């Protein structure tokens, strides 16, 4: 059978939406209908709630949903990264048990990779999982865990073998967060928010069937998750996209988005708010200061060119061309934009930049920019790691020699974490 045309798909999906979409239905009930129909995740395999449509056709389906104002499957948080990882590496049991409730939004997931002792060097994880009486027993600590306080499940990277080099001793698990051996504590940041958690494991238990792939293959599985994260499959991008429609389903979706997004309401400030610079300069009158004008122009130049560069990447993808270096540069350029914007906001704000909260301009948001921007060049891969990636993958330059890949992990010097 030949591939359906875009027009055919659009007709089919819009007819289905017209027949089924009702904003007064419960959100979970509606999403179960999406899952059963295949229209919720049309790019997924037919066997697992999809229609195996290509990227172009899937995008057309998404546009029809938008046009009709119909709500889609849950996308918040790391759930889509988990789904992508399970598609590639999970067993049928994993897919059967978890995929549907990921899409309906009934289960919240978290990603348990980073640790106090392993940030950029994630493969140096020391949280351990030991097989005792046929069950995996987990001990250790994870850090920077998004949504752990709401989560039912986590994907966990833990060390199961200390006698082999670091990448080879890791395993990938699905862990039930709601058990006595797991403690979740919020972690307060320098900007006052607590967006992430520390998660402690004390003899936490994982049933043997919830390892993903075999023991020692965890790094390969985690790489899949990270690759999807870099491609931007994470739901944080859907900031503020809860719709404004009326009806039970809309209300429930708004509540879902609000819960997940609450800890991240400072993210637009973290990115620097370059788009406020001109407006703010006019407000404070600093637009007449020639030195400040130069700073403003520099930020706006960077802000616009960054946008154009990323648009070039998107245009190339849409034309089916080979991806240029654009995709690898965005993260690092984002740091430059944020820093330049914070610098300009300081110059524009003057003495008021010493204030915070209600005493600071824009009800504290200017102060929030100034104390949030340092996160941009660290979170999701530091600027230094980004430069390594650019130099090695785009420019083809050699890796710097490692100290830790030629010996058992137990012999590698590492951080002492209390």
């Amino acid at each position, binding site marked *: 059978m030949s591939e359906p045309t875009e027009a055919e798909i659009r007709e089919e999906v819009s007819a289905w939406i017209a027949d089924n979409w009702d904003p007064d239905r419960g959100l979970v009930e509606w999403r179960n209908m999406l899952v059963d129909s295949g229209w919720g995740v049309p790019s997924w395999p037919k066997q697992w709630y999809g229609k195996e449509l290509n990227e172009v056709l899937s995008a057309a389906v998404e546009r029809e949903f938008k046009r009709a104002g119909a709500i889609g499957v849950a996308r918040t948080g790391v759930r889509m990264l988990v789904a992508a990882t399970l598609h590639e590496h999970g067993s049928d049991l994993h897919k059967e048990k978890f995929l549907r409730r990921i899409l309906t939004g009934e289960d919240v997931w978290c990603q348990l990779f980073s640790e106090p002792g392993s940030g950029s060097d994630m493969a140096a994880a020391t949280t351990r999982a030991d097989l005792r009486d046929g069950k995996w027993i987990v001990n250790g600590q994870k850090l920077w865990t998004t949504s752990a306080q709401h989560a039912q499940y986590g994907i966990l990277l833990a060390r199961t073998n200390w006698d082999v080099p670091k990448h080879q001793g890791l395993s990938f698990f699905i862990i039930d967060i709601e058990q006595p051996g797991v403690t979740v504590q919020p972690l307060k940041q320098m900007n006052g928010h607590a967006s992430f958690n520390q998660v402690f494991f004390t003899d936490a238990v994982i049933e043997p069937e919830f390892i993903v792939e075999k023991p020692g293959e965890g790094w390969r599985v985690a790489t899949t998750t990270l690759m999807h994260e870099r491609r931007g499959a994470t739901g944080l991008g859907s900031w503020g996209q809860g719709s404004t429609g009326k009806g039970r389903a809309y209300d429930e979706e708004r509540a879902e988005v609000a819960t997940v997004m609450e800890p991240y309401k400072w993210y637009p400030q973290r990115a620097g708010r370059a788009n406020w610079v001109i407006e703010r300069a006019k407000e404070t009158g600093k637009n007449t200061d020639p030195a400040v004008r130069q700073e403003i122009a520099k930020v706006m130049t960077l802000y616009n*060119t960054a946008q154009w560069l990323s648009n070039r990447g998107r245009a190339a993808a849409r034309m089916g061309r080979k991806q240029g270096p654009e995709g690898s*540069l965005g993260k690092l350029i984002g740091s430059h934009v944020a820093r330049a914007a914070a610098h300009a906001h300081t110059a524009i704000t003057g003495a008021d930049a010493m204030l915070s909260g209600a005493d600071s301009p824009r009800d504290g948001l200017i102060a929030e920019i100034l104390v949030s921007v340092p996160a941009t060049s660290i979170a999701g891969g530091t600027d230094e790691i980004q430069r390594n990636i650019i130099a090695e993958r785009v420019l083809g330059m050699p890796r710097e020699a490692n100290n830790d890949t030629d010996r058992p992990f137990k012999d590698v010097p590492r951080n002492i974490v209390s």
Partner: protein
Amino acid sequence: MAGKQAGDQISRYSFTDEQEEFRTVLRRFLDDKSPPTEVRRLMATETGWERAGWRELNNQLGLTAIAIPEAYGGQGFGFVELCIVLEETGRALLCAPYFSSAVLATGAILNAGSEEDRQGLLPAIASGETVATLAFTEDNGGWGSDAIEMTATPSGSGYRLDGVKSFVLDGATADLIIVVARRPASSGDDGLGFFVVDATADELEKTPLETMDTTRKLARLQFNGVEAKPLGEGDGAGVAFAKTMQQAAIALASEMVGGAERLRESAVDYAMMRMQFGRPIGSFQAIKHKCADMLVDVELAKAAAYYAAAAAADDDEDLPAIASLAKACVSDAYMKTAIDTIQIHGGIGFTWDNDTHLWFKRAKSSEVFLGDAHYHRELMLRHWDV
């Protein structure tokens, strides 16, 4: 851009297959015709270019004709194709009066000339037979219309030009000179006009200037009552002058990204080859990170130049700001790339025999040519009413 962002139509953000193919052909041609040895040979001559090579460029590829409409003997392509040529000539550091003839003079004639002027002047420029330039800057070195003091006085059926033009690109070798001058006692954009002058006029004194970038020849021209014909009305050309400068800024930005990318490539190549402490210096993070930063600078500069070229082709209403943004952004990036390239080459990068300084000097000269980054950032904000 400041609320006036053009839609994200694909043509703003990508080249067509034909344009990419054109670039490939051009790069191959220029690799062959303008290797560094040829650049070094020509830059050491007083004229800086030769008729034979110029003819080849025009007979084989019709490069000067590229953006001239077919009605005036051109190839009828657009501004984007012109900018592709400039990116490649900038990459090859081609020694030819291309910027003066195909960008400055052609731009002035298209923007300010009457139909008759275009019919009369453009075909010979398009074929390369006539090399033309635009004389607008003066001894004061200002780039805007307010810096133009030279007067054009009505005389007989035409005008008489008196005064000095300086920093004129290929001013000592062009056959035809288009001069920007003003009605006596006018100022700013008011009373500005373009005038056509035969470069062999007796009353015209041409003095080549010693340039730091010897691939870019400049001259000082003294006009002692030189007879001139007006282009268009010979008055009220303020808008045409501004537009010519905006297009030139974008063309220069394109030329600069070509050079910057070549430097960036040479720096990475060298870092991979140069051995110290028993390993290529390109394996040290200090060097890798610098190279990654250079790629970021050059790719952002390319995004600016490409967007600006497409905006010029569309005659975008925000063109004045986009042109200034591109000039400022790219000239900063080119200069920084040139400095970093020398740094990565170490001592050898500071020698005359290493080619880096040829592009370094072009970057330095381009930093100020048509107005430096501070000047253009200010123009950009004014256009945005900041």
